[in-house]
């Protein structure tokens, strides 16, 4: 569709609407491990550019260094855009600035909760202070900072929950259990 655009249509306005269209298409690409949330809602897609010749440059960032889903996500983006008629898709990996759960959309957080995964509760690991070094760095790993955040149960809403394990089924999640409804649940960690 974009590749087929007539030369006259390659104005700034046309390119900008093409970019918006690409974002909308990417918004329908699900995360392979948590399919209720899209890769856009998760904050993985950082930049979309459309060149005058219709080629599309997509910049993505990994959630975790070792995230095994990155190749699947890259393939899913290419497949989705090909299916919409974009002939040339170039993917770029970017690691800085580092991905944070702060980039997750409110819609994404709501979808996680509906799926039974508690969304990130607060910014627990704030690296902005760490870069100052010294005392701030030491404080970040002191035992007081290691206390797990209070997380509401995504099933019954109770705040009466406790952490079972700091790691869950994927690197981005921790395991909790609800002390009221007794259900175990995944918590999408702040990162």
């Amino acid at each position, binding site marked *: 569709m974009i590749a087929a655009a007539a030369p006259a249509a390659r104005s700034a306005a046309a390119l900008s609407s093409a970019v918006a269209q690409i974002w909308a298409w990417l918004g329908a690409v699900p995360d392979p491990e948590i399919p209720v949330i899209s890769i856009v809602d998760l904050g993985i897609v950082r930049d979309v550019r459309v060149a005058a010749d219709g080629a599309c440059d997509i910049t993505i960032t990994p959630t975790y260094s*070792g995230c095994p889903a990155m190749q699947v996500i890259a393939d899913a983006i290419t497949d989705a855009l090909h299916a919409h008629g974009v002939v040339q898709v170039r993917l770029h990996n970017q690691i800085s600035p580092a991905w944070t759960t702060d980039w997750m959309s409110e819609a994404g957080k709501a979808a996680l909760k509906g799926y039974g995964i508690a969304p990130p509760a607060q910014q627990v690991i704030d*690296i902005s202070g760490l870069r100052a070094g010294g005392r701030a760095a030491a404080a970040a790993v002191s035992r007081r900072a290691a206390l797990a955040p209070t997380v509401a149960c995504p099933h019954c809403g109770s705040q009466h929950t406790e952490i079972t394990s700091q790691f869950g089924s994927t690197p981005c999640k921790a395991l909790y259990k609800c002390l009221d409804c007794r259900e175990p649940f995944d918590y999408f960690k702040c990162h």
Partner: protein
Amino acid sequence: MDNKVNYLLRLGDNALILSQQLSQWCGKGPALEEDMALTNVALDLLGQTRLWYEYAAELEGAGRSEDQLAYLRDAHDFKNCLLLEQPNGNYADTMVRQFYFDTWHYFLIEGLTRSSDARIAAIAEKSLKEVTYHLRRSGDLIVRMGDGTAVSHAKTQAAADALWMYSGEVFAYDAVDEAMVAAGIAPEAGELRAQWLAHVAEIFAEATLTMPPADAWMQKGGKQGRHSEHLGYILAEMQFLQRAYPDAEW
């Protein structure tokens, strides 16, 4: 070998060898949660390995891929610290090794976020939240095991004593490390060691463990490729497929 390439390979080799060691616990952890935690940490370290190797391979410019660096080098070409090739042993051995490493790794990575090399700073920024989480978890486990039962305390103290002599190598800077410090790429050893000692002392105090003497004699040589026999066994398993079926791909 170029100093920066050498330094990057050291960072990558540390992460890779520990990742491989932790993966051995997969399916054998003392509890399901521990099993998942260690394999998640292994996955983070593997991701970091790839970032370091990728950069090292680019700078080296010899056409080696990250896979070739991991699978086609022999023990004397590996530059990981001796601590990381020590056997998994019992769970206290694994967690003390992890805690000693995580403490150094955290303060190192935190220092590398201010590296004069923008690519290294970016990789450090990406890794910092992961290693912060690793250190919080391993410190928590040391307290739980040290201040746990008489048996867990004894095993954790024994592991802390036995692995202590491998904890100092990371602070024994050689010409490669010093070149990195001079170029503003890596943090100095003195400050890192002070931070490491302070954090280990804090956790050991809460864990009711006795910290071995800071001036104890320390092993070294891993960074320069002089390894214990353990590394050969680790590589034999890790590299088998590529050695037996060269260029095999998933």
